Each structure stands twice: as C-alpha cells, then as structure tokens.
C-alpha cells in the first residue's frame, strides 16, 4: 500500500478498470445520448436557433414567450386532460379485467390472450384502424351507439346523435382516451401476476374474521398490490405526458382546431416544422421539470400509501 490518502490498491484499480470496461458501452451512450444532449438542450433553451444560422443568446426570452403563448397552454391543457382520464381509466379497466380473470374460470388463457392482444398492435397501425372505427358516418362504433341514442331521444323527446368523435373538438380527446383503454392489456398482465402473488392465507384469515368481498379487496388485495399500482401509475403518467403518435396520425397535427394539440406534438412542430429549436428546447426542459416533479411527488406519496413486503416501519 502506498499510504497516500484516497489512493487505491492495485487490486482495486484493476477491479475498477474491469468494471468500467464492462459498463463502457453504457457510459459512452450516457455521455453521447443523454448527459451531453441534456446540457446542450438546456443551453439551447436560452437561445434563438433555426438550424441554418448560429444560435443567438436571448436569455430568458423563450420562457417568457412560452408564458404568453396560447398554444403552449392549450397543449398543456390538452395533455393534462388526456392524462387525467386515460391513466386512471386505463388502470381501473386493467384492474377489473385482472380481478375477473383471477377468479375461477374456464379457458382463462384464451381470455387473457384476447385482452392482451390489442396492447401489442403497433401504435401506428392502431391509430389508422381507430380513425376508421371513429368514422362518424360509417364506423362501427356509432353503429353500436345508435340504438342507445335512439332510446335516449325517444325518452327525452329531443334528438340525440352519436358523437362525431375525431371531427368534434369536444369528442376528439375522449376518443383518444377510449382508444388508449383498448391497449391496457400489458397493465392487466402485470396486475394479474401481482394478484396471483397475494398469499392465499391472507384471504383465509379474512374469511375467518367474516370479511366481505369488499373488505378483502380494500384491506388485503389493494395494499398487497400497491407497489405495482404505484409503478404503473408513474409509468402511465410519464408515457401519457409524451403522447404524440396518435395525435400526429389521427388528428392531423392537433385538429379539429387545436383540440388534440398535445404537448409533445407542439414541441415537435416547433422543432421540426417551424425550426424554432431554442423554443422547442425550452419546452423540452419544461416537460422534463414537470416529469421530475411528478416523480418526486409520487415517491413521497408512496411512502404513505404503498406497502412493501418486508419493509419494517
């Protein structure tokens, strides 16, 4: 040993070199595709940059413009609206499906496959398909809704028509929410796996105590699967805030009007259609900040509501 403070032994140096060698692909990727670009886009967010001319320092101008950009707030609102419905409704649907499949039943694998299958349909293909499903004149969705509408019309005496979905500024976002629920199969598989991991003995004890089905759900099932609920909630929020493809394809860049102009769509338009790279970088950092805050809050909340097996408190 060389007695120098903080110096490593030869063995440690060798271990470090070996370890760094193995993780070197990731380290290089981290520098080139994450840390570097992250810092660069932070710097760009204080500039005016159109790709063709060198970036020009403008201080906080981009952020000041964002604050008064109507479309920025509209896109934020659209994204928040979509997220507020798509994520909880998707989780509830996945949970109900998982609960149903977790009961004693014939041909369970078949049903599991059917519910799972939509989630692997390529998003672009699904988007093209759902445009046709949502077609207000010929789509099958309105064909199935028409009898219900006729019934309501008959009962109330005034005419009710099925919505125009993607052509209507009020129904376009709910339409996209509906489509997202079709793809909850992956979440359902996660919930189903978690449900099957809940020890049977807990339910037996609850039975002895005379617990009702609701009590068992509330006091056994939900706490036991709360880690996976938190995980899917966080992942769902992060993914939903980045919604892009559906809106790009199905509603032609945010139509009707700007009712489906989602945050990442507007960001993309600024970057690659208007070549406002500085402005788009500022938007990208706002998104990053929002996601970081949400993640932090979720972990805070998790400590109160999530039960981790084996954690002693």
């Amino acid at each position, binding site marked *: 040993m060389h007695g120098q403070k903080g110096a490593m032994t030869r063995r440690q140096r060798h271990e470090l070199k070996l370890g760094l060698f193995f993780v070197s692909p990731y380290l290089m990727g981290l520098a080139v595709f994450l840390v570097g670009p992250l810092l660069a886009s932070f710097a760009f967010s204080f500039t005016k940059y159109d790709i063709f001319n060198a970036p020009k320092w403008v201080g906080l101008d981009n952020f000041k413009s964002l604050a008064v950009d109507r479309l920025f707030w509209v896109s934020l609102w659209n994204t928040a609206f979509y997220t507020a419905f798509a994520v909880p409704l998707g989780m509830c649907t996945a949970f109900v499906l998982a609960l149903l499949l977790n009961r004693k039943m014939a041909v369970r694998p078949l049903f599991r496959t059917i*519910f799972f299958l939509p989630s*692997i349909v390529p998003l672009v293909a699904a988007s093209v398909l759902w445009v046709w499903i949502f077609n207000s004149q010929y789509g099958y969705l309105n064909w199935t809704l028409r009898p219900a509408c006729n019934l309501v019309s008959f009962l109330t005496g005034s005419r009710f028509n099925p919505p125009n979905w993607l052509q209507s500024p009020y129904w376009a976002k709910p339409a996209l929410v509906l489509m997202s629920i079709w793809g909850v199969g992956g979440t359902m598989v996660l919930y189903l796996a978690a449900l099957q991991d809940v020890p049977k003995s807990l339910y037996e004890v609850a039975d002895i105590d005379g617990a009702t089905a609701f009590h068992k759900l509330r006091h056994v099932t939900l706490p036991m699967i709360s880690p996976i609920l938190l995980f899917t909630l966080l992942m769902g929020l992060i993914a939903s805030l980045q919604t892009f493809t559906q809106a790009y394809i199905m509603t032609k860049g945010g139509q009707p009007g700007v009712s489906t102009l989602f945050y990442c769509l507007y960001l993309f338009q600024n970057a690659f259609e208007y070549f406002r790279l500085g402005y788009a970088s500022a938007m990208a950092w706002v998104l990053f900040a929002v996601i970081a805050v949400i993640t932090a809050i979720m972990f805070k909340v998790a400590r109160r509501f999530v039960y981790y097996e084996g954690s002693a408190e």
Partner: protein
Amino acid sequence: MKRGTVFTHVAVAGLSLVFLFPFVWLLTSAVKPDALLKQFPPVWVFPPTLQHLRELFAPDSPFQFGQFLANTLFVCTFTVMGNIVSSSMVAYGFARLRWPGRDFLFYAMLGTMMVPAQTMMIPVFLLFRKLGWIDSFLPLVVPPLFGNAFFIFMLRQFFLTIPRDLLDAARVDGHGETAIWWRVVMPLSIPALAVVGLFSFLGAWNDFVNPLIYLFDETRYTLSLGLAMFQGQYETQYGRLMAASALMTCPIVVLFFFTQRTFIEGIKMTGIKG
C-alpha cells in the same frame, strides 16, 4: 357462489367481444369491396375481395410493403443484436463484478429512465445531422449499440440469480471475465435474453418518432412511417388502409402466438407493456 361464477363468465365473455371487435373490423374492412365499405349500417357478411391487397402490392403503390418490411427488418435486426450484446455486457459489469462506484452508477442509470426522450431529441438530431447520418438507418441502429437502461436493469436482475460457485469455478479454471460473461453467463440467460430480443424487436418495429425525424426518402421508410404517410395521402381509402394496417399487425400477432410465454415473462420482469 354458483351465481358469481356465471356472472364472471358472462362479464369476461362480453368484455372480450368488446376487445376483439376492432380486430374483426380491421380484417373485415381489409377484404370488403369498396362499394360496401361506405354503407351504413355496416355489412358483416359479403364475398371477400383481395382487391385492396392487390393494390398494395402493385408496383406503383405508395405503400411498398416488401420494401418497407425489408427496411424494418434491417433496423430490427441491428437493434436486437446491439441490445442483446451491449445490454448484457453492461449488466454483467453491474451484477457480477465488484468495483468502486458501481452502485452509484447503477442507481444513476435507474434515475435516467424517467428523463423524457424529447429533452434529448433536438441535440441528438443536430449531432446526427453533423455526422451526415440524416436519411440513413444509422440514427436508428447506432444508439442500441450502447445498451438500454431497461434491458440492462432486467438482465442484471437475472444475472444476480446465477449461482456464484459457477462463476468462481470458471475463474479458478483461469477464464477471464469476458469469457465468463460470454461463455458461462450468456448461455445460462437465454430466457432473459429472449425477452430483451423480443422487446427490442417490438420497439424497433413499432417506433414511429425516430423514423419520422430521420428518414425522408421513401425507399428507406419503415413500416410505421410508410403506413403513416400512406394514411396522410389516402385518408378515405379505408379498404387499402385497413389492408396495410393488417399487414403491419399480422407479423406481430403471429410472433406473439409463438412467444407467448416469453412475452408474459418479459412484462412481469420489466413492467414494460408491449
């Protein structure tokens, strides 16, 4: 008790019809004659036609399925290989080697998984532009060579389950760590590597944003970009659109039926949802 079981079956059967119906609509529309497509209420029984498929395979079709498929498979192949080799190598470094700073870097990596790709998108685009890689496959196939945090995490968890004695025996035999990783750990990890392969294949097959940003020449379109562009041009040709959509979806569904177990395992291991 009995009534509950009946209720469950009815509910599940009903819901499964709701989830299946879009597939029925996709397939029937793909083989429905143009004259019947725009009829309300929809016609469900009709003589099927291959007209739409034939139009797609015509030499002047704007949706060149063969070409787009070849491009997609090219990107998929490199993505899968890059991810398997790099992610497993990095995972080995995190799982089976002890070195100062390892755990810090590992947790830092987990933290990076929540950074939205959009934040890096613009500088990465400028970098590839500087390298002259725009309108080539390089921006799609090079990044996977550096590993992927999700896959590294998953493989690390799997590698940790390999008994220590096995690796120590190989060390005593005089094998270096590289040989141990490649010849001992990799063959033992086929199930986990299959998950990585499958999910990175799906990721590359479904990716839309990157092809949209980097590919411009039609001869280089992937299926997802080609289908999106086709939809933009032929908005109202629902028969052809559904045929093209079905062509893009079918290989994935077939793949799913052959690899169901891997799929389900993968979802449980990573929490990535398809």
